[in-house]
C-alpha cells in the first residue's frame, strides 16, 4: 500500500515514515506545496496524509486541489487541536477522516488501515491473523470460525492491536483510542489493564496462543512470537 505524507515538520514526518515502513507501507513524502502537487499528479496513492496546518494556508489549497483532481478519496487530514474551522472545512471538502496533533503513531496506523479498507473494499473486509478473523463490517471477531463474545471496547481493542501487530503500544495510546482525549480518564491505567485482561482471557479460553504481551509495564504488544 502506498502512502503520501504531506507534512512540513521534518522530524514528525520522519517519525511517521519510520513507523509506517515497519507496517510494510510504502511511504513517500512532500514537505511543501509544489512537491505535493507534483507527486499527486504523478501517482495514485492508497492514502494521503495531509497536514492542513501547512504554512501560507497551503494545506487547504492542496485539499481543494485534490478534490478538483478527483483524488479526494482516502485523505486523512492532520489539524491542530482547537482549530475547529480548519477541520470542519477539511471534512466539508471531502476528507475521509481527521486526526488532531498530537497523536499516537499507533492511532495513525489504525486510521490509515480503516481508510484503506473503506476505500479499496468498501469497508467490507475480513482481517485475518492466524486463527483470528475479524469481520469489520459486522464488527465481529472469530477464533477458528467461532465468534468471540467481546464487548464493544474489547472488539475495538482487538482490532487496534491487530492493526498494529508486532508494535509496542503505550498505555496512553490505548486509553486515547478507546475513550478519546476528552475523557481525561486515561490516567486510569488499571481500567485498561482490566479490559486487556478480559480480552486475553477470552482468547485463551478458545485455545489461542497468548498474543497479548505486556511490555515492562509501559505498554502492550500483540505478537505472534
Amino acid at each position, binding site marked *: 500500500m502506498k502512502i503520501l505524507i504531506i507534512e512540513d515538520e521534518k522530524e514528525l514526518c520522519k*517519525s511517521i515514515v519510520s513507523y509506517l515502513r*515497519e507496517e510494510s507501507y510504502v511511504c513517500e513524502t512532500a514537505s511543501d506545496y509544489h512537491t505535493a502537487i507534483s507527486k499527486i499528479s504523478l501517482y495514485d496513492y492508497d492514502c494521503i496524509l495531509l497536514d492542513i496546518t501547512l504554512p501560507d494556508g497551503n494545506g487547504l489549497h492542496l485539499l481543494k486541489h485534490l478534490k478538483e483532481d478527483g483524488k479526494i478519496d482516502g485523505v486523512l487530514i492532520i489539524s491542530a487541536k482547537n482549530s475547529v474551522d480548519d477541520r470542519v472545512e477539511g471534512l466539508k471538502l471531502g476528507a475521509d477522516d481527521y486526526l488532531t496533533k*498530537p497523536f499516537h503513531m499507533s492511532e495513525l496506523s489504525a486510521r490509515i488501515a480503516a481508510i484503506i479498507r473503506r476505500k479499496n473494499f468498501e469497508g467490507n473486509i475480513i482481517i485475518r491473523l492466524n486463527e483470528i478473523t475479524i469481520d469489520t463490517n459486522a464488527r465481529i471477531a472469530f477464533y477458528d470460525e467461532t465468534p468471540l463474545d467481546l464487548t464493544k471496547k474489547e472488539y475495538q481493542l482487538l482490532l487496534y492491536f491487530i492493526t498494529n501487530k508486532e508494535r509496542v503500544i503505550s498505555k*496512553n495510546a490505548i486509553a486515547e483510542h478507546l475513550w478519546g482525549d476528552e475523557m*481525561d*480518564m486515561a490516567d486510569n491505567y488499571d481500567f485498561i489493564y482490566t479490559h486487556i485482561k478480559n480480552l486475553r482471557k477470552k482468547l485463551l479460553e478458545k485455545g489461542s496462543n497468548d498474543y497479548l504481551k505486556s511490555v515492562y509495564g509501559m505498554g502492550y504488544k500483540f505478537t505472534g512470537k
Partner: protein
Amino acid sequence: MKLLNKYSRVHVITACIVLLISSVSYYFIIQNILLKQIDKDLKVEEQEILDYIHANNSLPQASDYRHQQIRFVKSGENIQDREITNTMEFDEREKEYEPFRRLSFPVTANNQHYTASVYKSRVETEDLLRLIMIVTALIFIILSAVMFIINRFVLGKLWQPFFNTLSELRTFNLQNKKRLNLTKSTIDEFEELNSSVSQMTDKISNEYETLKAFTDNASHEIQTPIAIIQSKLDLLIQDEAITEKQSKILQAVYDAIQRLNRLNTSLLLLAKIENKQYAAFHKINLKKKTEEKIADFNELWQANKFEVSCTLKDSIILMNYELADILINNLLSNATKHNYNGGKILISLTEYHLMITNTSNEPLLNEEKIFQRFYKPSQSKENNGLGLSIIKQICDASDMIATYYFNEEKHNFKIQWNSNR
C-alpha cells in the same frame, strides 16, 4: 435629550437676563433722548422769553395750549433757582392730570421778580415710549418662541448624526465583522467624531482578528513540538533492547507530555472562551446530552464501583453546543476523579439547574478560590487546576451561575440559569 434641556435652560436664562437688562437700559435711554428733545424745546422757549423781556422789559403773554403752557408767578424775596422738573398738571379739557415737563427760571421785568415756567406736555413722549416698550416686548416674545422652536426641532435634528453614531456603537459586535455604518454629516465635529470612532473600531477589529489568529497559531506551534516528542516516544518504545529502568523513565516522559498537552489544550480553551470565540448559541437538549455523557462514563463508574443516582427532568437551554459538551464533561470528570472506590455520585437536572454531587476524600474546598486558575486543594498530579476555571468561564459566557457548597461530607457543584431561554 438632556443636553438640549441644559442648553435650552442656559440659553433661555441668558436671553432673559440680557433682554431684561437691555430693555431696561433701552427704556431709560429712549426716555432720556425724548426728554432731552423736550428740554431742547423748553430752552428755546426760555430763550425767546428772555429775549422778549430784554427787548421789551415786560413779560410776554402767558399761554395755555394743549401741549405747552407758559406762566409767570411773582416770586417776591425768594429767587428760585433755575430748574427742570417733571410735573403733573390738571388738563381742563381732558379733566384729568397729565404729565408735563417744566422749565422754571427767574426773570426780572419792570423791576419785578418773577418765576417763569414753561410747560411742555409729556403725553406724546410717554405714548411713544409705551409703544416702543410694547414693540420691544413683542419682539422678545417672538424671539423666545422662535428660539424655543429652533431648540426643540432644529437642534434635535442637528444632533441626529450623533445619536446615529451612538446607536451604531451600541450594536457594534467584534464577532460580526461588520463595519460601523456611520451617516455622513456636514457638521465638522460629528464628521471628526465619526472618523475617530471608525478608526478606533477598525483598529479593535483588526487587533481582535490578529489575536484570534494568534490563538490558532499558538495552538499549532505548541502542538507540533509536542507531537514530535510523542512520535519519537512511540518509536522509542518499539526498541526491544530497552531495559526496565529505561522503560520506567519513558513512561514518566509519556505522562509528562500528556499533562503538557492537556494543560495547553485547557489554556487555549480558556483563552478562546474569554475571547468570545464560542459566541454562537444553539438550542441544547440538556437532558439528552447529560444522558449521553453519563453513558460514556458509566463503564468507568462501574469499574470504580460508584453508586450513581440520576434525576433528570426535561431541560432545554440556549448555549454554545461545544461549551455545553465541555461543561458536562468537566463536571462529571471532576466528580469521578475526586472520588474514592465505592463512592457516590448524584446528578440532578431540572429546567433551572444542573447539580453534581460527589463523595470525596478531600475536605471542604475554599468556595472563593476554587474557580480560580491553577488552584488545587491538594498537590494531585491528576488535575491541573484548570477544570473548574473552565467551568466558571463557560458559565460566564453562557449567562449561567456556578456555585459550590459542601454538605454532609459531599461536594456539590450547582449550575443555575434563567429558564426563559
